[in-house]
């Protein structure tokens, strides 16, 4: 009995210690081992000795310009396991905020022999990813060669923060050239304001309206994409259909924030003007008006765009008709819809909807000071120029690749279709939508597109007035964007 008690005490103490440490689980570092760790470590030591400071780095750059032409010539076969020169580091560090790209990388990219890929993943929520990334990039100079960030991922909302800073490097010098097959906006988004290319995107993110066929049939009397598009082609029509959907016992959208991107991507004034003043475009105000109307009339739900409440609407018994999303949305957000038993696979279709827009997009940027410039270039070329990899992204992952030739190939292929969308060729739709992308990014983009709209939930649910919601926007900006001036007191519609 005594022993039992002692063991129990030990066990509970361990459990306690365990739970204390569990909180530290945010920062997951995983390592893809492609070489025996022992050799990697030995090489790393030799490499660190060789790669001594900036002098060596500039040597690298000089060596790279000579190889640049050769590299771009075989960009199309990138990612198939190249042989690296001896100057390359043995540890490849990538910063990311989720597992999405990691999945594609591990599946389709052949890591050069002897290189260990080290993923550092921090969640994007509340700006944690940017915080950790900024810290690491600020310490890049002092870090040992194998600890330096080689490549990091940046999202559409805030990519401008990194492309304009010295922490990203000109990738044309290491063998990545802007390609004709890439979408223009993905190139300009990855370039600094003076036009220096800092990276690439592996995807193009035109976003459309993904509607539930069965509900469209009930509400509009048709589920044919062309006819549904006709009835939802602008916001006035959209609002009218919302009322009809309500009458028929359905929801127009699953979340008050569902229509945020279609509005916010069509802004014509920047969030921050040249003098550092915060300003709000009429499109954003139009969204606020619509969302309030929808919540008041019961056309939508009060959960956020990532809420469980919204996800539940994708199930078999879901009542919501219209979702907005790009190609990554199917895998990333529509999990419940895919389920054979409880889901709604095949009951969906994609159209342009009331407003052309895009949503998100992940760019790969090269970090200044990387000790793996050849591999950085190889990864970037693999996911843009290698048609084989790009094709697999479309056919196996339902992505919309950043390669116009590949996308066109699938768009023209009559036998190609998306299972979730009941066999509709969504790539053909996206090819058209991609022509209308008006890209904008600002360093504080995540705050503007997540925290600012978030201030209006209480207004939509009726617990505060619109003026109070705008006052809360001022508070958020005070806390999160200390360097911009703002006064939202005059924005309330009343």
């Amino acid at each position, binding site marked *: 009995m005594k022993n039992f008690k002692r063991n129990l005490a030990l066990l509970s103490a361990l*459990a306690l210690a365990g*739970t204390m440490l569990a909180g530290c689980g945010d920062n997951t570092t995983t390592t893809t081992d492609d070489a025996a760790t022992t050799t990697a470590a030995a090489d790393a030591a030799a490499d660190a000795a060789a790669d001594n400071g900036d002098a060596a780095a500039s040597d690298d750059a000089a060596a790279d310009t000579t190889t640049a032409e050769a590299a771009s010539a075989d960009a199309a076969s990138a990612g198939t396991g190249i042989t690296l020169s001896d100057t390359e580091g043995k540890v490849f560090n990538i910063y990311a905020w989720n597992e999405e790209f990691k999945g594609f990388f591990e599946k389709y990219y052949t890591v050069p022999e002897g290189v260990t890929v080290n993923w550092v993943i921090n969640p994007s929520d509340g700006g944690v990813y940017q915080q950790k990334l900024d810290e690491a990039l600020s310490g890049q100079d002092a870090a040992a060669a194998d600890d330096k960030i080689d490549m990091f991922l940046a999202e559409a909302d805030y990519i401008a923060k990194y492309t304009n*800073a010295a922490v990203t490097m000109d990738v044309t010098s290491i063998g990545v050239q802007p390609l004709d097959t890439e979408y223009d906006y993905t190139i300009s988004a990855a370039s600094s304001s003076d036009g220096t290319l800092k990276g690439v995107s592996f995807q193009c993110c035109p976003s459309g309206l993904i509607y539930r066929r069965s509900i469209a049939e009930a509400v509009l009397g048709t589920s044919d994409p062309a006819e549904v598009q006709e009835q939802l082609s602008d916001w006035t029509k959209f609002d009218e259909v919302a009322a009809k959907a309500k009458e028929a016992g359905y929801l127009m959208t699953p979340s008050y924030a569902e229509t945020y991107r279609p509005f916010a991507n069509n802004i014509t004034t920047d969030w921050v003007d040249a003098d550092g003043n915060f300003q709000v475009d009429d499109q954003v105000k139009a969204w606020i008006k619509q969302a309030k109307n929808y919540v008041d009339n019961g056309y939508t*739900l009060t959960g956020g765009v990532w809420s469980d409440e919204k996800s539940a609407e994708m199930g078999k018994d879901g009542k919501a008709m219209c979702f907005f999303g790009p190609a990554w949305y199917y895998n990333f957000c529509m999990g419940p819809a895919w389920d054979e038993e409880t889901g709604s696979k095949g009951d969906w279709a994609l159209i342009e909807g009331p407003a052309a827009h895009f949503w998100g997009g992940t760019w790969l940027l090269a970090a200044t000071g990387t000790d793996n410039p050849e591999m950085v270039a190889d990864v970037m070329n693999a996911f843009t120029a290698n048609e084989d990899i790009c094709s697999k992204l479309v056919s196996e992952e339902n992505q919309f690749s950043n390669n116009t030739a590949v996308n066109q190939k699938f768009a023209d292929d009559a036998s190609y279709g998306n299972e979730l969308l009941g066999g509709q060729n969504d790539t053909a739709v996206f090819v058209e939508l991609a022509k209308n992308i008006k890209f904008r990014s600002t*360093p504080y983009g995540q705050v503007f597109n997540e925290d600012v709209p978030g201030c209006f939930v209480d207004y939509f*649910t009726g617990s505060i007035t619109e003026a109070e919601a705008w006052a809360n926007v001022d508070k958020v900006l005070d806390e*999160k964007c*200390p*360097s911009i001036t703002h006064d939202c007191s005059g924005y309330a519609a009343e």
Partner: protein
Amino acid sequence: MKRKSISYAKWGYIFIAPFFIVFLVCTFYPLLSTFYNSLFENYWDASTFSQVGPNFVGLGNFKKLFTADAKGNVDILTYTANTMIMWIAGAIPQLAFSLLLAVIFTSTSLNVKGQTFFKTVIYLPNLIMAAAFAMLFFTLFSNVGPINQIISGGVSDKIVDFFNNVVTSRGIIAFINFLMWFGNTTIMLMAGIMGIDQSLLEAAAIDGATSGQVFRKITLPLLSPILVYVIITSLIGGFQMYDVPQVITSGLGNPNRSTMTLIMYLNRFLGTTKNYGMAGAVSVLVFIITGILSFGVYRSIVSGRSDPKPKKSKSKGVL
């Protein structure tokens, strides 16, 4: 021959030295550096990818904190009030409930069986991480959670949006804090009650005092040193309330910032901007408020209750 006297005093100092060293390094130095940081403008500017400051601004950060908004509200006072409301809503039931349990468990006339079991069980919630507790309650009370399924299943045809309502969201947070800490308080109070001389209680009973009278006239006054300790630690803990509301509201303090506590507000300045100046200023304010309130509680209970000598007291106790 006179022997030199041996002083063991140095051993005393050596034995207490570790605490002071740890205190100086881990508590006192950070405290001073917080005061120091609060006087500077010092943050990371994401728009230019560069550090701003540290520039000395004197009390500028405090001035900013106390600047009223367009409607004349001073945010920091609102957040102080939020924190106090949620603390009190959790602490009062906690104290009452713990006191009741402590009396029941220590009562010789009731002689509750299986005390060790109950003590363990009521202490258990404290072993669970607050964040995990918060997640659990968030899931339970969410719009698609089990509580709302029960409500919409039979009680009413509408769901209750618990986290969009000031009273319910504050209530849930206070309840979690109550649930987590009442076991701890019960055990403290039991220790306090068991330290009271039983003969006093028996004497009172022989003199014909009812159990209520015994509790009010004997147990409570003699318990006051422990009560002071419990209330002050609870107050300090309450003012540092962070994890539960942070997790439940994703750091937003919704609805309308009514569950935003002081430490959550402090945390909003950290994150991407790393605004050490403003965060330092909030910390200093929390320190001052907690100090004043703790002193107030201490004075009121100590001078009001357990001062048997009729000293001429200069300050009148609150209680």
